[in-house]
C-alpha cells in the first residue's frame, strides 16, 4: 500500500501529464524548445556549447552555458518522446520535489494531514512557474539544500552541501539561491561559534564546488552580472513582481495569508537563521514571481510545525488513521508507467498561439527566406527547434544576448524612433511576428516591404530586393 507521499507523487505526476498541464509546460514560452535544441546540438557535436550557433545577431559569440546538464537531459527526453518527453521529465522532477517535501514534513514529526494540506497549498502557489525548463531542477536542489543546511547547523557533514552544489551548478543558474539560504543561516549563527564554524566551512567548500563547471569562475560571475542589469531584470516577465490581480497569484496569496495568520496567532519561536530565511525569501518572492516556488519550498518546513501544534486531538486521531503503507513504490511506479504509456502525446505546440502555419510556409518556400530574420522574442526558442536551418534575431537566452541587443530588439518591436535604422543595421530581410505586432502595421506602410504570409497567429513581411 503506498504512503500519502507516494500517492501525492502519483497524483501530481499524472495531473501534469494530463491536459492542459502537459501542453502548458512546453507552450508557456519558447524556452522549453530552446533548451531542447541546445541540448540536441551538444549531443550531436558531443561537446558542451561554447559559442553561439543559433542567432545571426551574435553568431559565434562566446556562450556561458548555465544549464548544460539539464539541457542534455531535456534533449534526451525530447529525442525519446518529443514535446511529450519534455513534459514527462518536468512532471517527474516537479512531482518528486513535492512528494519529497511532503515526506520530509512527515518525517519531521508534523501532523500528516497538515503536511498534506501544506504540500498541496505549496504546489498551488508554485504551479505558476511549472514549465519544462531547467529551473525545475532548482526546486529539487533547493529542497535537498535547505534540509542539508539545517543538518549542518546541527552538526551534519558540510561536504554533502558541496556535492549538492556541484550538481546544482551544472543543472541550473538558480544555484545562487543556495548561497542566499546558507548566508541567512550563517548570519543567524553569528553568536554561536561552533555552528558558525561548521557553516563557514560549508560555505567555503561550496564556493569551491561552484567552480566545478565547464565555465569555471565565469559562470557565477556571468549570473551576477545578469542580475545586476536593472534593464534586463525589469524587462523579463518572469523577473517581474507577481500581478496579484491574476488568477495565478491566488495560491501565493493564500500561502501569505496562512503564513501571516499562523505567525500572529500561534506566535512561534524561530531561530535567527530561520527568521532570516522567512523574511528574505518572502521579500524575494514579492520582488520576483520566479522566486515564489523557491519561497514556498523553503518556508513549508518552518510553517508545518506551527500549524501541526494548532490542530486538535480529533484532527490528530484522524490523521494517524491515514498513516498506512510505506513500501508502495512498485504500485505507484506501475500506475505512473501506465499513465505514461496511455496518455496521448502532443507532437506540436498549439497552432492558435505559435506560428506553426508560418513555419510550414517558410519550409515550403525556403528559397524566398534566405536572408536574416527579425522574430518575436517569445517565439525565438520555438523557431530554433522548428526552423533549425534559419538563424534567429533573438530567443530566450537573454543573458547571452545582453542589454544592448535586447534594447535594439525593443526599439524595433516597440516602434521607437530608431526602429528602421536598427532593422537596416542588422540587415533584416524578413520578419516573423504575431498578428497584432505594431511593426506589421509600420511595414505595411513601406513600399519596399511586402506581406508574404498571414494567418490568425502570425504575419511574415519580406523586404523586396
Amino acid at each position: 500500500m503506498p504512503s500519502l507521499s507516494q500517492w501525492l507523487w502519483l497524483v501530481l505526476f499524472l495531473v501534469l501529464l494530463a491536459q492542459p498541464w502537459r501542453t502548458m509546460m512546453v507552450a508557456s514560452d519558447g524556452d522549453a524548445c530552446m533548451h531542447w535544441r541546445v541540448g540536441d546540438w551538444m549531443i550531436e557535436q558531443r561537446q558542451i556549447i561554447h559559442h553561439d550557433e543559433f542567432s545571426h545577431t551574435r553568431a559565434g559569440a562566446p556562450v556561458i552555458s548555465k544549464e548544460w546538464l539539464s539541457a542534455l537531459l531535456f534533449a534526451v527526453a525530447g529525442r525519446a518522446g518529443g514535446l511529450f518527453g519534455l513534459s514527462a521529465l518536468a512532471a517527474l522532477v516537479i512531482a518528486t520535489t513535492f512528494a519529497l517535501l511532503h515526506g520530509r514534513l512527515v518525517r519531521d514529526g508534523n501532523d500528516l494531514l497538515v503536511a498534506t494540506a501544506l504540500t498541496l497549498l505549496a504546489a498551488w502557489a508554485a504551479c505558476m512557474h511549472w514549465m519544462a525548463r531547467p529551473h525545475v531542477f532548482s526546486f529539487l536542489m533547493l529542497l535537498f539544500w535547505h534540509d542539508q543546511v539545517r543538518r549542518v547547523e546541527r552538526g551534519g557533514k558540510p561536504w554533502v552541501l558541496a556535492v549538492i552544489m556541484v550538481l546544482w551548478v551544472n543543472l541550473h543558474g538558480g544555484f545562487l539561491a543556495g548561497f542566499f539560504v546558507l548566508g541567512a543561516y550563517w548570519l543567524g549563527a553569528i553568536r554561536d561559534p561552533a555552528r558558525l564554524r561548521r557553516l563557514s566551512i560549508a560555505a567555503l567548500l561550496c564556493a569551491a564546488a561552484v567552480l566545478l563547471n565547464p565555465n569555471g569562475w565565469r559562470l557565477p560571475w556571468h549570473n551576477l552580472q545578469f542580475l545586476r542589469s536593472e534593464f534586463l531584470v525589469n524587462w523579463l516577465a518572469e523577473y517581474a513582481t507577481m500581478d496579484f490581480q491574476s488568477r495565478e497569484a491566488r495560491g501565493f496569496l493564500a500561502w501569505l495569508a496562512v503564513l501571516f495568520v499562523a505567525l500572529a496567532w500561534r506566535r512561534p519561536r524561530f531561530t535567527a537563521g530561520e527568521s532570516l530565511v522567512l523574511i528574505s525569501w518572502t521579500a524575494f518572492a514579492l520582488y520576483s514571481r520566479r522566486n515564489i516556488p523557491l519561497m514556498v519550498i523553503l518556508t513549508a518546513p518552518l510553517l508545518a510545525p506551527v500549524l501541526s501544534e494548532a490542530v486538535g486531538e480529533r484532527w490528530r486521531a484522524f490523521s494517524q488513521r491515514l498513516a498506512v503503507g510505506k513500501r508502495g513504490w512498485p504500485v505507484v511506479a506501475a500506475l505512473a508507467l501506465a499513465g505514461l504509456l496511455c496518455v496521448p502525446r502532443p507532437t506540436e505546440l498549439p497552432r492558435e498561439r505559435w506560428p506553426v502555419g508560418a513555419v510550414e510556409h517558410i519550409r515550403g518556400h525556403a528559397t524566398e527566406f534566405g536572408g536574416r530574420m527579425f522574430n518575436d522574442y517569445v517565439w525565438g526558442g520555438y523557431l530554433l527547434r522548428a526552423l533549425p536551418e534559419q538563424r534567429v534575431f533573438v530567443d530566450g537566452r537573454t543573458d547571452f544576448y545582453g542589454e544592448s541587443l535586447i534594447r535594439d530588439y525593443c526599439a524595433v518591436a516597440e516602434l521607437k524612433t530608431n526602429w528602421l535604422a536598427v532593422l537596416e543595421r542588422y540587415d533584416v530581410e524578413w520578419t516573423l511576428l504575431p498578428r497584432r505586432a505594431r511593426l506589421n502595421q509600420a511595414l505595411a506602410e513601406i513600399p519596399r516591404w511586402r506581406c508574404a504570409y498571414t494567418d490568425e497567429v502570425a504575419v511574415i513581411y519580406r523586404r523586396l530586393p
Partner: protein
Amino acid sequence: MNTRHWWMPSLRVAVWLVFFVALACSPWRAQLVSRDGDAALHWKLGAWMLEHREVIRVDSFSHTHPQGAVISKEWLSELFWGAAGEALGWNGLVLLAALLIATTLFLLQRQLEAEGSDALTATMLTLLAAWTCSMHWLARPHLATHLLVVVFNWQLRAFQQGRLSGRALFAWLVPLMALWANVHGAFPIGLTLIGLYLLGNIGKRPEQVRNMKLLAGLLAACAAATLLNPNGWKLHGIILHYLRHSQFVGGVNEFLSPNFHASNTWGFAAQWLLLAVILLGIRSRWERVDLVLVAAWGYFALHSVRNLPIFALVATPIVAEHLRHRLPLVWQRVAADISRINLVADGTIWMLASLGVVAAFQPCTKPMTEVFPVRAVQFLKQHPESVRGRMFNPDHWGSYLLLEMPEHPVFMDSRHEFYGMKLVRDYLQVMRGDPGWLETLKRYQVNWTLMPARHPLNQLLSLRGDWRRVYADQNAVIFVQD
C-alpha cells in the same frame, strides 16, 4: 503643573510644518500637479461648477462623448480644487494638497500619541507611513480619503478599546460618511473599515455581541448616509460598474498591482519588514480585529497600488501598539526625555503663520514640461491655423489639455468610466497600433494628433503620405492630416 508654551512647536506640529512647507515650496510641488493629469481635470470641473453655479451633469470637454451624462464622484472637493486653482493657479492646487497631506499625518501622529505611544515612536512611525503614502501624493480629491481614513480608523479603534461610546461613534462617523460620499469616490473604504471591525468582533461574548450590533447599525446608517449626494444611488452604480470592469481599471496605473522593482513601493516593504520584526521578534498577542485589518488591507494593497497609503494609515496604529512596551531601553530613555519637552509644547501658532507665509511667498508652480506638452500647447496658441478639426490625444494628457486648450475638445481623458467601454477599447486600439487603428481614427473624424514624442503612433503616421508633422519637440509631436 507644566504650562504650555505657545512658541514651542510640538513634534506633531513640527511634522505638519515640515511636510506642509516642503510640499508647498520644494520642487516636489511640481510633482504634485504633474505626476498625472487629474489635478488639471478637477480644477477645470470645479471651475466650471463655480462659474455655472450648478453641479456638472453633462460633458462639454470632449468631442467623442459630447453632452454625455456626467456623474460627478467628487463634486464637493472639485469645488475646493476649482476655487484654489482659480484663485492662485497651480500654486492653489499645491497649497490645498500640502494642507491635506500635512494634516493627515498630523492627525495620524495625534492618534498614535492618544493611544499611548511616546512622541518619538509616534513621529518615527508617522514618517514611515508618510514614506508609503508619498507614492500617491498628488493634488487630487483622493487626499481627502486619506484624511478621512485616519479619522474613521481612529474613532473605530477608540470605540473598540472602550474609549469612545457607541453614540459618539454614530455622531462622528455618519455625518462624516455623508461628507465622504461627496468629496471622493473611494468612500466605500469607510464602509469597508466598519465592516472589517464588525468581522473582527464576531463572537459570542457579551461585549462582542454588543459591538457587533452597534457596528452593524453603524454600517447601515453610514451606507444610508452615502445616498446624500447629488446623484443618489447612481453614484454607487457608476463606482461598482467602474471597479467591475477590468477594461477601465486595467488601464489605470494606480489600480494595478504594486511593482516591487519600483522605489515608490519601498516604504510599504519597510512597513512589512517592521511587521515581520513584530511577528518573529516581539511575538506579542494580536487582537482579532487587528489581524483582520492588517490581513485585509495587506491584500487590498497587493491588489491595487492605490491602497498602499490606506494600508499604511490603518496598520501604523497597530504597529505602534505592538511596539509600545517592547522598545529598547535606550530608545525608551530618549523618548521619555523628548516626551517631557513635547508635553509642554504647543506651536499651533506656527501652523497658522506658515499657512499665511507660504501662501504669500510660495514660489511659482508650473507643470513639468517633460511631463505635459507645455511647449506644444504654446505653439498651438501662437499658430491656431496649423490645426483644424478633431484631435487625438493620450488620456494622461487629456486633463491638462482640457484645462489649457478648452477650444480643442479632447478625444479622451482619465474619466474612463464616463467615456464607456467601447470608446476606451477604440482608444486603446489606436494607442497600441492594433490592426484597424487607422479606420478607427477615420471613424472618429480625427484630423490631428498630439502625442508623446516617443509614441509609436507617430512612427506609423510618419510613414503615411496623407499625414504630415507640423510640430515636434523633446516631449510632444503634432501630426495633421492633409
